[in-house]
């Protein structure tokens, strides 16, 4: 089962860091040709050198920008097999009492509208595959879809919304007879640069790290490559009967009562 993804073409949004970058590495390692998007040019260049993947500067929430990106993938690769709708933000988020409309709109535009556009354009591209409508779309939700955070309201709301989005798209593809699968993954706390930065720039890094690690009964955060392993499985033909599912990958954080 080596090189499960040989001959497949993958799109990863928000691929310059964190889970997205992990997915770029893993999908490339399993033989896929990967196109990833984002806005951090320096990080992207390093990842291109490391993996041989291609980078496109692109913002998922800008509807008008999608035609060009997909035309580019079609012209270069002639197909699309895998789409990982990963790009997400929390900038501008807050509690329901404090959030501004601008902050709310910012989070929704990327986490919800951006994911919708990714799934929509991926299905359209996959429909045009030379061997018929085939492919696997993976939406990066979060365990916060099931356990909302009080101080990150919009993030929690969007992560719940995209689970329903994935299920709706999965049922639609089934109804249409497309062999295009759509699933959501719901990671727990993953040790990305974003989380590490939050820990290290806070008033008490040691306590912050302990708090993040303590959320899972495993008493550690997930690692980026552990999430990428699940993405690769769902992307592969091994998962051919899996569609409309939501896979929690959180070290049992939401299997019980947190910390009890």
């Amino acid at each position, binding site marked *: *089962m*080596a*090189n*499960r993804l040989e001959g497949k073409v993958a799109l990863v949004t928000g691929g310059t860091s964190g889970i997205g970058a992990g997915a770029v*590495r*893993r999908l490339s*390692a*399993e033989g896929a040709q990967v196109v990833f998007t984002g806005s951090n040019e320096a990080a992207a260049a390093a990842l291109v050198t490391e993996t041989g993947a291609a980078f496109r500067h692109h913002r998922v929430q800008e509807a008008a920008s999608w035609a060009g990106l997909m035309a580019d993938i079609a012209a270069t690769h002639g197909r699309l097999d895998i789409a990982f709708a990963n790009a997400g933000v929390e900038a501008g988020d807050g509690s329901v009492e404090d959030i501004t409309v601008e902050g709310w709109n910012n989070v929704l535009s990327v986490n919800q509208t951006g994911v919708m556009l990714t799934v929509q354009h991926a299905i359209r591209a996959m429909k045009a595959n030379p061997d018929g409508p085939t492919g696997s779309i993976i939406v990066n939700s979060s365990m916060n879809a099931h356990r909302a955070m009080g101080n990150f309201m919009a993030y929690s709301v969007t992560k719940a919304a995209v689970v329903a989005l994935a*299920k709706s798209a*999965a*049922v639609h*593809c*089934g*109804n249409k*007879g497309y*062999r295009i*699968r759509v699933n959501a993954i719901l990671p*727990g706390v993953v040790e990305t640069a974003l989380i590490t930065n939050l820990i290290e720039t806070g008033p008490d890094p040691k306590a912050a790290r302990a708090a993040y690690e303590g959320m*899972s*009964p*495993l*008493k550690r955060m*997930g*690692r980026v*490559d*552990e*999430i*990428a*392993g*699940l993405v*690769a*499985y769902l992307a592969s033909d*091994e*998962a*051919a*009967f*899996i*569609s*409309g*599912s*939501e*896979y*929690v*990958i*959180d*070290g*049992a954080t*939401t*299997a*019980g009562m947190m910390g009890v």
Partner: protein
Amino acid sequence: MSDVSAQRLKGRVAFVSGGLRGIGLAVAERYLAEGAEVVLSDLDAEDSAPARDTMARLGQAASYLRADVTSEDDWLRARDLVKDRHGALHILVNNAGTDLTGPVETLALDAWRKIMAINVDGVFLGTKTFVPMMDDSGKAFRGGSSIINISSIMGLVGYSEVSAYNASKGAVRLFTKGIAVEFAQKKMAIRANSIHPGFVLTPLLNAGFQRWVDKGFAEKSSDLVETMAATTPIGRLADPSEIAGAAYFLASEDSSYMTGSEVVVDGGWTAQ
């Protein structure tokens, strides 16, 4: 970076209950293909034709014992065999199960107790028996040992005239979460997850369909296969190998952060 080469279960020992047919057999075949050594159990006698034929085909890395999952003595024998032959256990697939259909008001108490014994007691006893050995064996790996309990989509949603099966598979779902949290909190090297297959073309499904045909609900069982396919968004039933793919993922290091999770493999059936 995880090892993405083939034979990712080399050096691992797996036990699969209900291993002679259907999903259990497909899981055993997949684990063997990935380099694991596999012990299978089922109800067939050790010198029966199904056991002998299957074991001859599976080869030297596989072994078989007759064991009833509802018998604690049989599980202790299984543990002794695994210990003597392999000295370790890394993967336990509690797969053996049976179904039971009928209106709740006419279900016999004995039949209810039998399905609970096989589908729930069997999972509990298998887990209980092998936990100490699996904790020891799992310490050598980041992801530890892996317990994989085969539940069902019927453990997630209710279905008419399947209430006893619903109850048994729902119990498996939450038993799995309970042990996942328990093992993690105690820093034991064992993960536990449940798989929830949708409609899979297995001997168990065929037997169930035949009973419906006998009751006059359908003319032939292939009509029922078509009906089930039509209610599944993907438009077909699963092959047992597709459930084995999930059982492989959960056994491998790729799932090292997954514990207490539900792996639904149902072609979109419960997404509707």
